């Protein structure tokens, strides 16, 4: 398959089942909502080392938030419910509770509740109070700028992590430009995040390592500087490769984001140095969800 001179490999992205939640952060203005959201989603690029993958899904206008203030919706993904519970608690307490004027609300409904204010309330040292309004329980925790308002629970849902595609370009500059175009387009898709810095990862990994303590190591098949030493999958003329990883709430969300991202890259085409699009898999043995590039783009 070739789109605008870009070769689409007959490859698939291998993704995994995860647990996810969405929370809504609001604040006095968008600036402070983003300070909190950025902190909450920090150090959350990969479950390999961070235990959590998180990102800002999108900005929320005042009319979209529960309290009528500007805000941001945040998605968090973990490999298990217990890890998600722990990560959410830590990130909410250290990054949202601490952030001036912030409030934290559930962003998704499900039959599986995750504690939110339920644990944070103890920070109130006995001065906290709860209020049940229209079937939703809120915790009010006294803090130095007034009250931190936090919904008692949010919902947890099954989700998918690790959707991906690789951009193979003639130069690093061209690969970056293509990724920026892809990310800009993908950020308009709901229910997905691209958890790496700027949405892009340069250190794509394979499972395992020659060092026993490491669960993952560099994806040598796509490393240009060692192409002569390894079983390289890099075609002639390619000098730089970048990857975009996608976590989404459903298969369809991941598929849509991949399609939109790849199409944005292909729009630049071979004229801008984009040679190929590929995807990362683990031999089809580890993940539960396979996203075939040709199928997604057809």
């Amino acid at each position, binding site marked *: 398959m070739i789109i605008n001179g870009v070769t689409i490999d007959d490859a698939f992205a291998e993704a995994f089942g995860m647990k996810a939640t969405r929370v809504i952060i609001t604040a006095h203005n968008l600036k402070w909502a983003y300070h909190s959201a950025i902190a909450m989603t920090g150090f959350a690029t990969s479950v390999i080392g961070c235990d959590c993958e998180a990102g800002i899904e999108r900005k929320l206008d005042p009319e979209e938030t529960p309290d009528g203030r500007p805000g941001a919706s945040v998605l968090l993904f973990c490999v298990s419910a217990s890890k998600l519970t722990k990560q959410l608690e830590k990130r909410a307490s250290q990054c949202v509770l601490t952030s001036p004027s912030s409030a934290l609300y559930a962003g998704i409904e499900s039959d599986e509740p995750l504690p939110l204010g339920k644990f944070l309330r103890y920070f109130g040292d006995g001065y906290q109070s709860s209020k049940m309004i229209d079937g939703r329980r809120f915790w009010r925790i006294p803090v130095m700028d007034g*009250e931190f308002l936090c919904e008692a629970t949010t919902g947890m849902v099954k989700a998918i992590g690790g959707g991906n595609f690789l951009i193979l370009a003639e130069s690093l500059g061209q690969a970056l430009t293509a990724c920026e175009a892809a990310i800009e387009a993908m950020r308009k898709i709901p229910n997905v995040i691209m958890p790496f810095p700027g949405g892009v990862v340069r250190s794509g990994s394979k499972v395992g390592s020659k060092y026993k303590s490491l669960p993952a190591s560099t994806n040598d098949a796509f490393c240009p500087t060692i192409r002569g030493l390894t079983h390289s999958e890099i075609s002639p003329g390619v000098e730089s490769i970048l990857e975009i990883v996608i976590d989404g709430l459903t298969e369809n969300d991941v598929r849509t984001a991949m399609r939109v991202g790849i199409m944005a890259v292909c729009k630049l085409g071979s004229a801008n140095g984009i040679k190929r699009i590929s995807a990362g898999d683990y031999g089809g043995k580890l993940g539960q969800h396979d996203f075939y590039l040709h199928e997604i783009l057809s």
Partner: protein
Amino acid sequence: MMHLLTLKLKSIPRFRVDLSPITPDQLGKKNLQEICSIRLESGNQKICVGDLFNVSGSESNHIVIKDSCDKLDRIGQNMGTGAITVHGSVGSYTGFGMRDGRITIHGNSGDYTASGMKKGALEIRGNAGHFLASAIPGDKYGLMGGIVIINGDAGDRVGDRMRRGTVLIEGNAGAYCASRMLAGTIAVMGKTADFTGFAMKRGTLILRNAPDSMLATFSDCGNHDLLYLKFLFKSWRKLHSKFSEFPAQVRVQRLMGDRACDGKGEILICQDT
């Protein structure tokens, strides 16, 4: 076409009558004859429904009581579904232990209205007596859930040992409003009398007007814009009440107490409304 089950009082009974057997869930699919033969406690006697009321209609999920008087007690007691509409005043214990559904009284209600109520909606278009949403002697809690709206005034001891739920009083409230309150929300649009918040442990009392006097055991915590009030006031907008017109956000003076009993209840007095 189904007609609402209607009970029209023939004459004012000599003694008080316990109307607790007349709820939608208990009447179920009973026919008119069976309903008329239900025996109600009245003083130390029993009186048949058919002797007390003219009964008509068949839709027992919504019961209408006409020409009611203040001798009819325990209307909607432990009711779990459906609706009861009463034209005229009612006696005490209206909605006692109510589990769900809706009761509307086009008149006044007596003492202990909504005591032990757990869920649903109770609306009094007139005034309510003493101990509205309060615990009866020996009971642990008063109101335990649901919403109670009083279009008129309420008597003394509103929300005594109230545990959860909402009480909205469009008129005035008597003395000891929110006394020994444990949780939940009471809002009063008019004035409150003496000893407001006496022995209050937790919960919220919202006052549109500052009381003439406050207990010395309440501490002033200053004026604030509390974010949660946005949610609370928004939840009132759908109500058939003056409270639906409450502004979206109101600055409040926060008083906390009753410190005489180590209470952390809050009295919020609306500012500039």
